[in-house]
């Protein structure tokens, strides 16, 4: 079965990012397909490579990046939400005249159309948030 996952809450806030990650991992382990994980609102904070949690804590961003690499996941950050929160890829940093970019490996920035498309392509869309 095809699943789409939506994450509306930032990491280390309540539990939504962890729940979404665990659900995605469990679905993949059962042989289901994840058509896309769409990060919206504060959820885009899952995709900054500058996150440095304490060494005895889980690194949520790195967990997503590793899972994406292993299963060729499509991790999409909403562009409008990302720009508001200072999350830029190389192209956007250049276009906005910023001196750095910070999108983590395995994530890409795109538009809200990607959420709509995931809703159409997936058999089930599962939302995690606050």
């Amino acid at each position, binding site marked *: 079965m095809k699943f789409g996952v939506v994450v509306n809450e930032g990491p280390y806030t309540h*539990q939504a990012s962890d729940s979404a990650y665990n659900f995605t991992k469990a679905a993949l382990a059962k042989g289901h397909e994840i058509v896309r994980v769409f990060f919206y609102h504060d959820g885009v904070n899952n995709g900054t490579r500058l996150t440095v949690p304490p060494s005895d804590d889980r690194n949520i961003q790195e967990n997503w990046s590793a899972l994406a690499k292993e299963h060729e996941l499509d991790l999409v950050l909403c562009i409008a939400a990302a720009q508001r929160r200072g999350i830029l890829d190389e192209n956007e940093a250049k276009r906005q005249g910023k001196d750095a970019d910070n999108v983590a490996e395995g994530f890409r920035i795109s538009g809200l159309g990607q959420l709509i498309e995931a809703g159409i392509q997936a058999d089930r869309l599962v939302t995690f948030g606050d």
Partner: protein
Amino acid sequence: MSILHTVNKSPFQKNDFSSCLSHANAGDAVLLIEDGVYGAVSGTEAAKQISSAEASVYVLGGDLAARGIASDKIADGITVVGYDGFVDLAAEHQAVNSWL
């Protein structure tokens, strides 16, 4: 259409669980996750509503354990599942509605 409802708020914080139980139909499932698992504790007003609910009620075991809620504290009629059970419930029902 059968629906899996997920509730992630404690019934002591918001009334999502109560509203969800009133809206859910026979054939639906309600899964308590995150702070929503407090709704599964026996003796609470929220748990009392479960016996008259039409939908089946489930709770995520890992989130119970993370909050120190032992399995003997769970109200009757609730099934404890893991993330693999969460995935199965999502697949078995035709849509997933997250009460956020």
